[in-house]
């Protein structure tokens, strides 16, 4: 969903990654009298990110803004589909329990080895066996080592949860992990071996299954593997016990008001421990975990999440200087200069994800299904989208274009060349030419008509009879306003090309419940196009599920054999470039109209410093305050 963003890469990736690594390694260094030397420019970014200030590091309490309606309410790190949000995971749970592999390096979605709990996995046996070796540096806050058994414990809890309901693990797709897990063993305390029934693409399995989408993270078996508060530690490898443990932990998790006091949740391996949690507001305070084994600032500060009920309330807090790190709402972009004057650094970048307008490939109304199946039509529609105009007019200039399933910015390592620049630049005349070249009589300002039916190269295409009018509906979500603004402009430009789009507003919840073909088959003829925003993206940006035929999260039933083959390669072949090939094809094939992505802009006080990546992370919905320190 558009509000639960995710992440991707940068052209300056090497430079940024280098700075991050250096900063992470030298974070304990400290000298006096330093200052911020320079700033980093990130491709596609709004503003710059200062390099880490040298000099004495101070500790204190750093407050961080929680966006409205996005406060944490789930602490058990085995998230369910219902609780799966970046606000529960990336900026809350992951402060206390780290995912196995950390996959956000500033704005770049890539594994950060220094922040990962294990060495990179080794794939063997035709990519059917995965060997994971835990690092020895990480310990639980009660002094126990983080072992491969703890990782196995997590897997067994996931399996126990899935036995109760497939909605108990958000990454679950029937037939895939953990259904394809034949066996899992821990030959020693640092090694976990997974034997899968079929090959997996290492990039996909590492980035999405072992790191992000699940996520998979070690859990303290020595403290949590029990079925009651004072019960004995159970053998969690016994499925019956695993179920009891899962049920017990889920029940404990439902007691939101005890999150900060329940001894269970105090056993952590991440950089922070929860010390206060307000069940009403979602406000929380964390203190540094002194046993944390990962990279961090020499003097870590307390981390305080401050909830807000509206963007206005949050922005007032920024303007009053009462919050150390807060976001700048899209409407307030013109006030960035003022915010800087008040003593804040400001940086923005689009969160990795896709914003798009869906086609309904099953809508038979006016033969739209046949029309949508024509590549030339989808190309013409892409030509009618004025992305730069949208960014300037509707995003206050704070956004970046996106031409395919992998957005142009933040630059991803998987970004194909044809998605870096617009393959279908805005041009009404190009759209008109495409339609004319395929058998349509174009009536600018009116409605185009198919006058050359047939499936020849210069005809309307299979299933489009003569006399068919190019007229259909588009349902859009009325919030946020930029969705309506963009589709209104699209409809206006389309009219210039004789395409008659009837717009109607709806709301996000209604749309996703009623205008998704597989879930609401009774409504397939009620919508031709829809725009509810978009979807977040996993670090390894395959569209598996969304664009493969019969995919579990299909919306408009797009189906293309080439796409199916490429998507399958992205998840099951050993080809590291498979996902790039997939994105390249989909950029050309335009299964949806890809839209620009607005920046997520953050401001933080100039008295806070740290690794540049730790501030870039904010734009990707990650909070890594362990790298922050006060300069005075």
């Amino acid at each position, binding site marked *: *969903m558009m509000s*639960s963003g995710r992440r991707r890469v940068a052209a300056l990736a090497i430079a940024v990654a280098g700075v991050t690594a250096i900063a992470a390694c030298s974070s304990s260094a400290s000298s006096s009298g330093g200052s911020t030397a320079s700033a980093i420019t990130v491709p596609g970014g709004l503003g710059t990110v200062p390099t880490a200030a040298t000099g004495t590091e101070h500790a204190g309490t750093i407050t961080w803004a929680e966006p*409205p*309606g996005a406060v944490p*309410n*789930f602490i058990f790190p085995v998230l369910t*589909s*219902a*609780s*799966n949000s970046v606000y529960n995971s990336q900026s809350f749970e992951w402060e206390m329990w780290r995912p196995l592999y950390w996959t956000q390096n500033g704005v770049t979605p890539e594994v950060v080895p220094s922040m990962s709990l294990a060495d990179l996995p080794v794939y063997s046996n035709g990519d059917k066996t995965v060997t994971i070796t835990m690092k020895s540096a990480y310990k639980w806050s009660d002094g126990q080592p983080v072992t491969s058994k703890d990782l196995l414990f997590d897997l067994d809890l996931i399996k126990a949860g899935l036995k109760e*309901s*497939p*909605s108990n693990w*958000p990454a*679950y*797709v*029937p037939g895939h992990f953990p259904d394809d897990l034949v066996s899992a063993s821990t030959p020693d305390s640092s090694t976990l071996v997974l034997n899968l029934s079929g090959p997996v693409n290492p990039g996909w399995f590492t980035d999405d299954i072992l790191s992000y989408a699940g996520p998979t993270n070690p859990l303290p078996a020595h403290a949590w593997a029990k079925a009651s508060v004072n019960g004995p530690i159970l053998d969690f490898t016994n499925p019956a016990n695993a179920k009891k443990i899962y049920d017990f932990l889920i029940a404990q*998790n*439902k007691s*939101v*008001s005890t999150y900060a006091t329940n001894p269970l949740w105090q056993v952590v391996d991440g950089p922070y421990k929860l010390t206060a949690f*307000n*069940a*009403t*507001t979602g*406000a929380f305070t964390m203190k540094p975990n002194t046993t944390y084994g990962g990279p961090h600032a020499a003097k870590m500060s307390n981390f305080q999440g401050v*909830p*807000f*009920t*509206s963007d*206005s*309330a*949050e922005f*007032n*807090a920024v*303007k*009053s200087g*009462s919050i150390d790190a807060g976001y700048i709402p899209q409407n307030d972009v013109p006030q960035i200069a003022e915010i800087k004057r008040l003593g804040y650094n400001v940086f923005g970048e689009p969160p990795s994800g896709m914003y798009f307008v869906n086609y309904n490939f099953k809508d038979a109304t006016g033969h739209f299904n046949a029309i949508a199946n024509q590549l030339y039509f989808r190309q013409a529609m892409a030509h009618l989208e004025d992305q730069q105009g949208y960014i300037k007019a509707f995003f206050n200039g704070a956004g970046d274009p996106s031409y395919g399933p992998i957005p142009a910015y933040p630059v991803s390592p998987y970004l194909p060349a044809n998605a870096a620049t617009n393959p279908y630049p805005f041009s009404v005349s190009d759209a008109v030419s495409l339609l004319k070249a395929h058998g349509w009589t174009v009536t600018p300002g009116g409605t185009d008509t198919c006058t050359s039916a047939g499936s020849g190269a210069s005809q309307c295409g299979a299933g489009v009879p003569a006399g068919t009018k190019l007229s259909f509906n588009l349902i859009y979500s009325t919030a946020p306003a930029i969705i309506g603004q963009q589709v209104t402009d699209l409809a206006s430009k389309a009219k210039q090309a004789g395409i008659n789009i009837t717009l109607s507003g709806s709301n*996000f*919840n*209604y749309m*996703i*419940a009623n205008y*998704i073909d*597989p*879930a609401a088959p009774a409504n397939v003829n009620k919508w031709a196009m829809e725009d509810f925003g978009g*979807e977040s993206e996993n670090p390894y940006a395959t569209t598996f*599920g969304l664009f493969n035929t019969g995919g*579990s*999260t299909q919306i408009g039933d797009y189906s293309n054999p080439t796409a199916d083959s490429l998507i399958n390669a992205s998840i099951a072949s050993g080809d590291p470039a498979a996902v790039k090939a997939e994105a390249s094809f989909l950029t050309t094939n335009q299964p949806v109209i890809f839209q620009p992505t607005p920046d997520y802009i953050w401001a933080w006080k100039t008295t806070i410093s740290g690794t540049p990546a730790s501030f870039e992370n904010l734009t990707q919905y990650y909070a890594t305050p362990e790298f922050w320190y006060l300069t005075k």
Partner: protein
Amino acid sequence: VVVIGVSIAIFILLHAIYPSPARDVLGLRASLAQINAWNKQNGYDDPVIVQYVRYVNHLVHGNLGYSYPENQTVLALLQERVARSAYLSGISLLFAVMIAIPLGVYQAVRRNTIGDNVVTSVAFVTYSMPVFFLGLILIQVLALQFPIFGFEASQSTSLPTVVGDWHDMTLPIVTLTLITVASFSRYMRSSAMDVLAQDYIKVARAKGLPERLVLLRHLLRNACLPMITLIGLSIPLLLSGNLITEALFNYQGLGLLFFNSLGKADYQVMLAYTLMGAVFVVIGNFVADIALTVADPRIRLA
């Protein structure tokens, strides 16, 4: 009967719009298998009548349901917020009444004077001003430009602390009070003018009763009758809180809880909130009727 009728209507309407909240709860990425499993697990695959009977059964046992998006029981969610909302709405209503009644009487007695015109102009401006705008102005001037008050309401969940936090609670209370005063004072002015034209006022004056007593004994009591109805109808506000004020001043209350539940298709919260609203409306009307009979013997006799 009203409450039962409301519960049936809301239940049917909700299910007509959203047969199941599964997609909203589980998210766009949830597969059909996950959605079906969730529906089964939570009883959303049963016929609507079965779901309603189950809901009512839970209701009579004090179980208002479970909010999946908030991961808490609905009862807990309401309990956490009801006192905060009631305080903000109640204190604002009290201040508004205390200001609006004398203001309305003053305007009626001094009608068409400069004072009346000034108050009328201010009331019109305030009345026509959106709450959001008024709040923003107050924050900008009295919290950011001249930091006399806090830019947000008290963040404490302890009612005594909230009540004692004048620094942070002043602006939200003032915002709500001003808006309410603007409307109440107009009603009061109109009502007082009607009463002033009554014969018994003329008789009282003719008898040589001091003006102060005329106003207090004869005018005020009678002019307040419409206000009693108005205040009674405002009682549901104690529940609903004031969504916009809560959102603007970062105040977690019931209004905001309900608003967020709409965005998250949080069935149980929506149902509970609407039912409570119905109960409060009934109570408000009842209290107003009782108050009217106390204030006006003619009604009591009837």
